[in-house]
């Protein structure tokens, strides 16, 4: 298979200067960035703050980027053989040294590029990536953009097939989620993480209505989450209302805040809307901090009543004259009862959100949201009231955030403004965008990746944000419209297998 690649290379005589120039520029930029960021490190010395230099690391980083870029450029211009051999060699040698040695300087006295084994492993992974890239080009016998377009189409087809398959995968996932707490490997920690993931799934599905369907870029979604959490916290602590009564109240309050925000921003779209919603999100947080006699200020609200199983508390020793969950059902007390109950609670809430969204997409208002996303002027010419349509999208999206907020408050037993910072909005939006705007399965997948993976790999805590950033960059390169960006029509005239054939 190497033959076509070689003839390709032979067809283009030695034009290596631009390739080396490109690699040299990349290496130079790396050097300039690394000299300041990596080259000096402050340390706590005996007499005060001091610093050490790490010029060896800077040199290794520059060399690694130079050769990596060189390999990429060579592969792209149709000379994949040398990069393939080189990157395989680097990956094998480095991986061998890493596996033999126990950190520190490598075995046989060979020094490893970086002290930190994780960074060394990243180099190995990058080398493997370059090798695969080169191998693919050799396999196809053609480099460049044609292959990229083909890959794009193949991935679109895959997304369409996954979307189609969710008709039966969806119930399977739901069944798995329902039985999860009773599966043999499910310990308390796993159920807890699953609850957290489901919270973000629900928030993602809620935001999907606003961003994915109605096309209104909302960067302040966490504000409605906060409204829901504080409504439950205040109603439960001040008036002693039960969770089930507070849930609809919190949803309604959040929805009214959605309408309140919706009114002034009706005329805005895109970037302008994003900025205003961002400001709204921050406003709510600042109000929560400063309105101390009402919200408890930065101290938040504590001792929020924990959820009860329709009136039966999950306490070891319930108050005089009350039955607890375990005594009522004749079980031994276990603290995991509450965890499992919370899990089912959020599962039910999330499933309701999902069914609601799937249903409303096929209703006139859902179609109007999508039409509004596509072309607002055409909507007006068809007699669709853009004001009401946008407001319902804001209100319904906010309502689900309110539900999720009450759940958050009852799960934590404590709320404070710190839980509702901009980063939360950004994560929820990242889940929606990463999953593919408007895709329900995409949101689940993205929540698993963004919330689940970091939770499971706490050992790599220090590299979480690095991985997060790298993942986002890769998605922007390969799937800029999201992992599962494929839209199924809400109604069909000719029944049969759509998506795969009709749209591509």
């Amino acid at each position, binding site marked *: 298979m190497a033959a076509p690649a070689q003839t390709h290379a032979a067809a283009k005589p030695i034009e290596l200067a631009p390739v080396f120039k490109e690699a040299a520029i990349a290496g130079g930029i790396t050097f300039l960035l690394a000299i300041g960021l990596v080259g000096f490190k402050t340390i706590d010395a005996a007499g005060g703050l001091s610093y050490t230099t790490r010029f060896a690391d800077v040199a290794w980083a520059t060399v690694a980027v130079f050769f990596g870029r060189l390999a990429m450029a060579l592969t792209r211009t149709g000379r994949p053989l040398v990069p393939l051999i080189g990157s395989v060699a680097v990956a094998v040698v480095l991986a061998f040294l890493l596996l033999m040695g126990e950190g520190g300087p490598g075995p046989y006295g060979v020094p490893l590029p970086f002290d930190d084994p994780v960074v060394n492993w990243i180099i190995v992974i990058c080398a493997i990536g370059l090798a695969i890239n080169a191998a693919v080009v050799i396999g196809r016998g053609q480099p460049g953009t044609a292959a990229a377009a083909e890959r794009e189409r193949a991935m679109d087809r895959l997304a369409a097939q996954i979307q189609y398959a969710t008709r039966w995968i969806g119930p399977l996932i739901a069944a798995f989620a329902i039985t999860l707490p009773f599966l043999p490997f499910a310990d308390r920690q796993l159920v807890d993480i699953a609850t957290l993931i489901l919270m973000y799934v629900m928030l993602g599905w809620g935001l999907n209505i606003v961003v994915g369907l109605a096309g209104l870029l909302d960067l302040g979604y966490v504000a409605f989450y906060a409204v829901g959490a504080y409504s439950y916290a205040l109603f439960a602590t001040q008036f002693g209302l039960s969770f089930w009564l507070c849930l609809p109240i919190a949803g309604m309050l959040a929805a009214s805040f959605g309408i309140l925000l919706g009114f002034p921003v009706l005329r805005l779209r895109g970037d302008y809307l994003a900025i205003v919603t961002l400001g709204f999100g921050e406003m709510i947080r600042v109000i929560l901090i400063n309105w101390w006699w009402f919200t408890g200020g930065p101290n938040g609200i504590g001792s929020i009543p924990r959820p009860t199983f329709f009136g039966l508390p999950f306490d070891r020793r319930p108050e005089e004259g009350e039955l607890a969950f375990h005594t009522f059902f004749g079980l031994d007390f276990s603290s995991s009862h509450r965890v499992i109950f919370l899990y089912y609670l959020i599962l039910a809430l999330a499933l309701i959100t999902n069914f609601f969204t799937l249903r409303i997409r096929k209703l006139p208002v859902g179609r109007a949201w*999508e039409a509004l996303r596509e072309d607002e002027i055409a909507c007006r010419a*068809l007699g669709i009231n853009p004001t009401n349509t946008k407001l319902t999208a804001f209100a319904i999206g906010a309502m689900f955030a309110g539900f999720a907020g009450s759940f958050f408050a009852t799960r934590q037993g404590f709320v404070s403004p710190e839980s509702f910072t901009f980063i939360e909005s950004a994560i929820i939006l990242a889940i929606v965008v990463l999953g593919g705007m408007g895709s329900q399965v995409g949101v689940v997948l993205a929540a698993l990746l963004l919330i689940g993976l970091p939770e499971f790999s706490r050992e790599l805590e220090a590299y979480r944000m690095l991985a997060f950033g790298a993942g986002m960059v890769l998605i922007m390169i390969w799937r800029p419209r999201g992992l599962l960006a494929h839209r199924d029509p*809400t109604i069909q005239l000719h029944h049969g297998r759509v998506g795969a054939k009709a749209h591509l």
Partner: protein
Amino acid sequence: MTAEAIQPVPTGARPLLTVEHLTMRFGGLVAIDDVSFSAGDGEITAIIGPNGAGKTTLFNCLTGFYKPTVGRLTLSTAQGTYLLEQMEGFRIAQQARVARTFQNIRLFPAMSVLENLIVAQHNKLMRASGYTLAGLFGLPRYRNAERQAVELARHWLERVGLIEQADWAAGNLPYGAQRRLEIARAMCTEPVLLCLDEPAAGLNPRESAELNELLLSIKSEQKIGLLLIEHDMSVVMGISDHIVVLDYGRKIADGTPHEVRNDPAVIRAYLGEEETEELPPEVAQDLTAQT
């Protein structure tokens, strides 16, 4: 000019739309200057004029995208009389039932062809779905209404020859098909007045002839008024009952195609004062036929 009486429709039809002293100013620019005319029910009224004559601005005033500076726009239908200049944009389509298409096509590109036509029936379906509540619980009333909406859409898809592409994304259709779909979408709103902004732009002669046929059949079957902006004289002269000519925002002629093509003011506007060299072929033909 202001003393000019409102002329009746030259063809004698009952006026559906009456435009009186319409003026639209953008700062110092007068895009439309005291234009009055009326368009008959069950007729095709063409609005022609050189580029920048204010034709699309007139459409934007009619369909509520602009608020006219001065003037009255009356739509008198069997359901009642509407003063369009006082209505909010979307209500003109919703209540007065004026539908329009756009010069640069405005479909919902990511939605399917069928969905485009279903969205056009939004208000009807919204009522049937009990403003979403009945629809959420899947009540039969909504399901029936949706079935009827699909039937109406199917009817129009057959009329414009897009039934095979019903489940395609609208943005993937070829250009001519997108133009036809936009007309079908406007018709799905069940309008009493259909405003078409250059429907033949970018169509080849065969497509253009098909369009003529479609518009004539809409006129005869639906008994609605059509208002047409068009540069293609074969379309304008072939199908219009009544032509209004604008130039620099003013109305310079108004009458049947025969009257308009012989009007010296129109010839001047299209050909310039003295020059008779660069005649557009249609006009040249008309001129030679006349002499």
